[in-house]
């Protein structure tokens, strides 16, 4: 169906549902309906795939969804967008992924389907030039980029006492990664049982990420790692 963004926007505006445009950095209106028009810094998660994808997304008033995924790239229209039942939808014609996002949330986020499926989540940006966006991201928005690729993932030892007691658990640790790939400032944000604390931190601090490309000053990147301690019966 051909999107009619202007009409939708007019209706929303007439109903007083639209907040100010995104370039005013206020994507959420007073009554909670999100105005998607603007530039967004997005992360795309795919089920079963460890690495996330970073994407710059622009929803234009002219009715196009555009992306810029390269430092020097121009905005590339990927499809027209539409809003129905307070849900934004568009398709990335390059990957055949169909994106949907409810506009009742606090930011632009939703599900996608195509060759695989997953979720996507965006934070608003105030700029519209891709190069400028990338430059601005090096500071305050650096954290939304995917972590560097792990260079060495050390698996923790499963505590023997936990095995004897048939104890499973989950530990989530968040940390920063410096430009050399070293893990800094780990802090445990979820710990199902204290027995898993030491082996988790021990393994994490012996892990490494790939170094970042040199060339300019790089602040640490935040990230998290979840450890799931699982037991399965080997008999029957």
């Amino acid at each position: 169906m051909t999107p009619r963004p202007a009409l939708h926007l007019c209706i929303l505006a007439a109903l007083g549902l639209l907040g100010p445009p995104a370039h005013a950095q206020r994507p959420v209106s007073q009554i909670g309906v999100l105005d998607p028009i603007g530039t967004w810094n997005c992360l795309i998660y795919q089920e079963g795939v460890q690495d996330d994808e970073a994407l710059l997304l622009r929803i234009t008033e002219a009715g196009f969804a555009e992306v810029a995924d390269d430092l020097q790239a121009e905005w590339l229209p990927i499809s027209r967008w539409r809003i129905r039942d307070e849900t934004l939808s568009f398709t990335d014609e390059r990957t055949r992924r169909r994106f949907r996002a409810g506009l009742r949330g606090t930011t632009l986020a939703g599900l996608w389907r195509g060759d695989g499926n997953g979720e996507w989540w965006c934070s608003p940006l105030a700029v519209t030039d891709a190069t400028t966006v990338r430059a601005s991201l090096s500071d305050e928005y650096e954290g939304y980029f995917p972590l560097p690729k792990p260079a060495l993932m050390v698996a923790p030892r499963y505590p023997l006492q936990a095995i004897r007691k048939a104890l499973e658990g989950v530990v989530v640790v968040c940390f920063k990664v410096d430009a050399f790939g070293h893990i800094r400032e780990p802090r445990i944000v979820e710990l199902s049982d204290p027995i898993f604390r030491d082996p988790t931190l021990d393994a994490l601090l012996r892990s490494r990420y790939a170094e970042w490309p040199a060339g300019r000053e790089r602040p640490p990147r935040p990230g998290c790692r979840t450890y799931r301690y699982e037991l399965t019966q080997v008999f029957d």
Partner: protein
Amino acid sequence: MVRLLLFSLLLLPMEWAWAQADNRTIIGSGNEYLVAGANAIRAGDFDNGIRLTRRGLDEFLPSPKDRAAALCNLCAAFNGVREPQKALEYCNESLALNTRNWRTYSNRAAAYTILGMYSEAVFDLDSAATLNPDAKAVLKLREIINELSLDARVIMEDHQQ
């Protein structure tokens, strides 16, 4: 290490353990072979324990309850000499006479554990725990079975905050 722990878990019916310390006990009185056999097994002298207990069973006519206890001792002793099949036979025979002795279930669980039959061992441990939930020997054997039968793995996943 696990083998050592299994040996340390050989369980004798409490009646026989008390027989020496408390002369007032009726069970086992008049059948010194059974008492001596129980003590030998407790001391780790399994061969003599088996010989004495068998003689006590053959030459005297113990009550069904005493017989069940003696058979439970033989089950423990054959676990000690690493003959779990024979241990199973004696435990089964003992349970046919007395189904309320948690030690017999626990000894049979130990035999199953030696044989690698962990699901059967867990089933018997549950029975033992039902009869005596606080038995430390049952808890310890369950830990050993967990260590032998559980496959441990840690799944790691990176993500944003």
